[in-house]
């Protein structure tokens, strides 16, 4: 493949000038905080930042040897796999259904996109109103109508289910939009041709639609995993606070709770550095191995 590259030999000054604003934004909002976190990870300091002691890797070893942190890793894996699967499958189903609609497509599209505009903490509060065992409406129905002894306050599985549903619900819209765009990018002629050859809907999906959607699916997979890893502490905070008995104490919530609730910046920074490295490793892995199976249209 030939790579197209533009050269600005005669305009180096202009090129630099045009790049500066973007680089400045990146430096101030991305690089600087990351460096700050890296520095903090090697310090123990008081909340007001008046005294700091350099402690080498102690913050890392303390975190990595704690049984609570091991539990967190396990919970994060369960949470990430469930949330990503649920939100991607639901997004795809909605997209397939809307793609088939003849009328009212725009209205449905808008309705399904809505949840994305809800902030995670608010999403958490909404789900709490439905599923709180004391005053939740759906919790009442589960307990009285359907005979489930619903109690996320003490049952870890229930609590995990609750945060998975809330986190996935928020992400379904995003997945839906991309899947729908992907579906609309598939040439109708291909599908019609296969239909004439006698392929049913399932066959058409498996052999034509799914492979052609694979770039979108891969992109969404990466983004959803990053979302579940980094962006879900607000939901956990408003729904379960990591409880009961640590059942929903996912890594990013620990980063948030130790740093932003309990002002232990050293430990929180060390945890976020670990989390950052884990996600970088995971993303590299995805691009190395999973992407091989993706077919990009030429």
């Amino acid at each position, binding site marked *: 493949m030939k790579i197209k590259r533009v050269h600005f030999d005669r305009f180096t000054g202009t090129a630099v000038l045009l790049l500066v604003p973007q680089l400045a934004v990146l430096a101030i909002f991305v690089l600087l905080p990351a460096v700050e976190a890296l520095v903090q990870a090697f310090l123990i300091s008081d909340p007001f930042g008046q005294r700091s002691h350099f402690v080498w890797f102690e913050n890392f070893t303390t975190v990595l040897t704690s049984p609570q942190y091991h539990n967190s890793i396990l919970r994060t894996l369960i949470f990430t796999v469930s949330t990503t699967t649920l939100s991607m499958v639901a997004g795809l189903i909605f997209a397939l259904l809307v793609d088939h609609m003849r009328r009212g497509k725009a209205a449905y599209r808008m309705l399904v996109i809505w949840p994305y505009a809800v902030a995670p903490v608010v999403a958490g509060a909404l789900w709490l109103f439905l599923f*709180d065992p004391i005053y939740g409406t759906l919790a009442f129905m589960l307990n009285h109508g359907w005979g489930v002894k619903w109690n996320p306050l003490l049952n870890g599985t229930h609590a995990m289910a609750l945060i998975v549903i809330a986190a996935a619900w928020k992400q379904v819209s995003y997945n839906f939009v991309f899947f729908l765009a992907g579906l609309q990018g598939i040439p109708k002629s291909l599908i019609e041709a296969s239909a004439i050859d006698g392929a049913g809907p399932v066959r058409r999906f498996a052999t034509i639609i799914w492979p052609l959607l694979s770039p979108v699916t891969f992109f969404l997979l990466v983004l959803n995993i990053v979302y579940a890893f980094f962006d879900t502490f607000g939901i956990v905070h408003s729904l379960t606070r990591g409880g009961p008995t640590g059942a929903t104490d996912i890594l990013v919530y620990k980063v948030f709770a130790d740093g932003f609730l309990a002002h232990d910046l050293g430990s929180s920074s060390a945890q976020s550095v670990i989390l950052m490295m884990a996600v970088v490793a995971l993303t590299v892995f995805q691009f190395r191995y999973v992407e091989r199976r993706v077919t990009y249209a030429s």
Partner: protein
Amino acid sequence: MNVKSIARAFIGLVSVIASAFAAAAPIDLQFWHPALGSVDAALKKHVDAFNASQSEYRVVPTAHGTYDETFNAMIAAYRSGKQPHLVTAIGQETLTLQLSGAVYPVQDLMVDFGQKVDWSRYIQPIVSYYKSKEGKLMSLPFSASTPILWYNKDAFSKAGLTRPPETWDEVGDYATKLRAAGYPCAYGSGWQQWVHVDNYAFMQDLPVATQRNGMDGLNAEFVYNRSIVKHIAQIQSWVKDGRYEYLGRQSSSAIPAFISGRCAMVTTSSANFGSVSRDAKFAYGAAMMPIEAGGKAAGPSLIGGGSIWVLKGHKPADYKGLAAFLAYLSSPDVQATWHKDTGYLPSTQDAYDKVKLSGYYNEFPAQEIAIKQLLRGTATKESVAVRLGSPIQYVAVIEEELEFVWSNKKTAQEAMDESVKRGNEILRRFQRQNAGAGSAK
């Protein structure tokens, strides 16, 4: 008249008007506090009255979410040099603030700016909670509360009960009867760590931690696994047979569960008077916290809630206004209204006497329970305060370990041993974070 003199007159006029404006423009004093619903309106009333009473200063209150969120916003602001003048912080953060070097002790402020305050007229179990080891008052007690037992009188009469329970064993018997009378939750509690750990230990004069519960030094260690296990085990047995319902961490559901009629008894903050009196659709009552039968006579309970801290880094003129504002908030009239509106404790004896003389407690006896509970018995050396570091972390550990007990994954002893062990690690880390801090003055 020539042009020059007109110009001079004009300049003179302008400068007179300008100086008049300068004198009229009041100095803004920023006051950050947590957003606590109806309590915020009750506070605003007094701030507005203070602003109207003089023209030099204008106090600007801002609600900042939960106690934790307010505290964090304040720290972030302080670190970038934009701190407010005043912040309401939860009592458990006293040690952190004391060591921060960021606060102007209220007692010094009042002396420096000529506000005469007779601290001996304050209700002592309240005011001593906020004093340093050396006896200096660090922050102004304002929204203090203490846990009490709220009970549903209608439920009690349905179950044939005529008076509130006085001992923990009685709570158990009552719960059996209330369950039999059809109540899904006989007893539940808000702020479990405050109620079942701190206050349980306090009222029986048992230590929560060494070093006088941390008052005497940063090297304090938790010891409540020796003092409260029997109590936790008793509640575990109630969870098993459905007499105690776990209502979640912090205070989340205790009051909704009580007001909705689901729980017939809850132990939680006295400062819920506002919402209980407004929303309960049944006859409610309040009683002092239960004690152990046959134990020593119960001492005063432990307070919680917030106090007002003055932050360093502002101009002397600002502090003069702050001293005046805090003196205003402590006046018997303000304290009496604040107490009646919210259920927070009046912090001075004068305010308490004033409310009492007005006959208010005959109409609302529930409101006097918390004060009586604080004034019963005598405070010992141990039961002054709990002054420990990283409260958010160690409280979360206790709540998590209690969840292991309520879900029958651990015995009370196992869970309390583990939570003491984990809590001590947190205290040691706090000690290192603050190594080199000057002793709290």
